[in-house]
């Protein structure tokens, strides 16, 4: 049957052309320029090339030798894993719980959205004040309840990792929450009613009906989490500018920005952008292969 409806292929052109026209003109053409830029020498955004690098692939060699780039990739991969497990996991739990209640569900849906709408600059300021070394909220609190006698520098090399990851992960739980809630609402109520009659309820219903039906939504979240971790930029940059402390906190997104905008090394920044895209495509294809999406 499926084959019959969608056998004639000509409507595909109408379906896909506008989108791919946009993608080609506004993303692929500029990105091809970016790939070309990565072989050139460019000393500032908006400046013309000063000629080819010597050798042209210089930046790619440099990238593999650059210890900061390895830090960035390592941190990003960890963030990616944490995002998938903690961020999507928490979002899933919260979404399932909100689905269980009648009273106040609209309220929770609204307030979980707050962190996404507040700008990263404001959140960065708030978190900076919470984790501030001297007189920050956390240090004051711990001192008052007698847990510490001397202030802890939450941004020093032994503490920064949690200080960096916690806000980044917290901020986007609401995003996956909204997506999963939407996925839940797409599940027809008839199915639940049928399950009810069959005697499945509570955890059993979640395990055998909800989760399998959420499979595709969760796959979407997985892809978004992978690409998102590679891109994440604003909150980490506000809290840890310049790879603080001692170049420990670089992520691929912040390092690309730093090289392009701050160091004015546009060609190296372009090479990092290529690397981000390659990593993203490879990892998400891998994820797709493992958790194959299903048709119904």
């Amino acid at each position, binding site marked *: 049957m*499926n084959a019959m409806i*969608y056998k004639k292929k000509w*409507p*595909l052109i*109408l*379906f*896909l052309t506008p*989108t*791919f026209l946009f*993608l080609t*003109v*506004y993303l*692929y053409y*500029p*990105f091809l320029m970016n790939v070309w830029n990565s072989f050139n020498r460019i000393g500032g955004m908006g400046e013309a090339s000063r000629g080819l690098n010597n050798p042209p692939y210089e930046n790619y060699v440099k990238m593999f030798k650059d210890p900061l780039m390895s830090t960035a990739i390592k941190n990003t991969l960890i963030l990616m894993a944490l995002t998938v497990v903690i961020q999507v996991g*928490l979002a899933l739990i*919260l979404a399932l*719980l909100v689905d*269980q209640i*009648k009273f*106040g569900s609209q309220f*929770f*849906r609204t307030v979980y*959205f*707050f962190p996404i*709408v*507040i700008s990263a*600059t*404001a*959140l960065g*300021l*708030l978190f900076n*004040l919470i984790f501030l070394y001297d007189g920050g909220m956390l240090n004051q609190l711990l001192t008052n309840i007698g847990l510490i006698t001397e202030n802890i520098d939450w941004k020093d090399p032994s503490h920064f990792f949690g200080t960096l990851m916690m806000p980044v992960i917290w901020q986007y739980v*609401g995003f996956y929450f*909204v997506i999963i*809630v*939407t*996925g839940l*609402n*797409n599940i*027809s*109520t008839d199915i*639940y009613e049928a399950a*009810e009659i069959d005697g499945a309820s509570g955890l059993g219903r979640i395990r055998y009906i909800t989760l399998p039906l959420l499979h*595709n*939504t969760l*796959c*979407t979240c997985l*892809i978004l989490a992978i*690409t998102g971790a590679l891109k994440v930029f604003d909150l980490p940059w506000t809290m840890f500018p310049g790879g603080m402390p001692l170049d420990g906190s670089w992520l691929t997104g912040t390092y*690309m*920005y730093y090289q*392009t905008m701050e160091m004015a090394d546009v060609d190296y*920044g372009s090479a990092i952008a290529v690397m981000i*895209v390659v990593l*993203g495509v490879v990892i*998400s294809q891998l994820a797709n292969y493992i958790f194959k999406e*299903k*048709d*119904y």
Partner: protein
Amino acid sequence: MNKIKRKKLSLGQFFIYLVLSLWALTTIYPFVWVVLNSFKPKGLIRKEAFSLPIGDKFTLENYVTAFRRVDIGAAYVNSLVISGVVTAVVIVLAGLAAYAMVRYQFRGRTFLYSMIIASSMFPIFSTIIPVFRMENAWGIVNTGNIWLTRLSVILPQIAGNLSFAIIVLMGFIRSLPIDLEEAAYLEGYSVFRIFFKIIMPLARPSFATVGIFTFLWSYNDLFTQMFFLRSKKFFTITRLLNEISSQAGTNYGLMVAAVVMVVIPVLVVYVFLQKNIIKGLTAGAVKG
């Protein structure tokens, strides 16, 4: 429904509310903090970050400063026009593309899918200059014409949000049961009618969700707006408030006041669109 079962249920419910409320505290607090601090005199935010704005510490100065020199109304209009158009176009185009990508089997489908994933990761910092050059060659930037100027922002923003929208919609459309489409096909519906009459209404929550995020990202996309909106009469609210609160990043009072003014319309849009995401009452009534 006997007594024991009811008791157990309410204990479970209590636990659920506890967990949900704990998380809600972490998300509400920053919002409340931002609002409270927008009523504090500048300089006090860093010094007394967590005190309440009462008595001496209360001021409307930040809002007065924000309103003083700028035309906030016009900026809201600019924002709504730009982000509204971006959202509408993205929903339709991404919907069509996602539908086709899910339902049609064709050669090159995997390749196109990789293309979409890849394009969602192109950093804006590396694409903006070629886009600027291109639009300049078309004569739609720095023209002084308000519609052309808006168009110069709208077009790159549509492209920038398409990939995300397609990825999400593909996941949702894939989960729709195909039976309805088959029935409609037997009734003699064309594929386009199936898309507009069956898929779109069925997946309304999904489209609403994608719409919310597209609106949000277009609205908050300062980087693109900075590049194309140069003179004040074209400014969006985000661009405008950034302009008055960004100087050396030091006036935190003005900054949080700006955040409040920027956030309100987004929350309104979210609450409005959220009605579409919420399951019908019958679903909530899956008897307890």
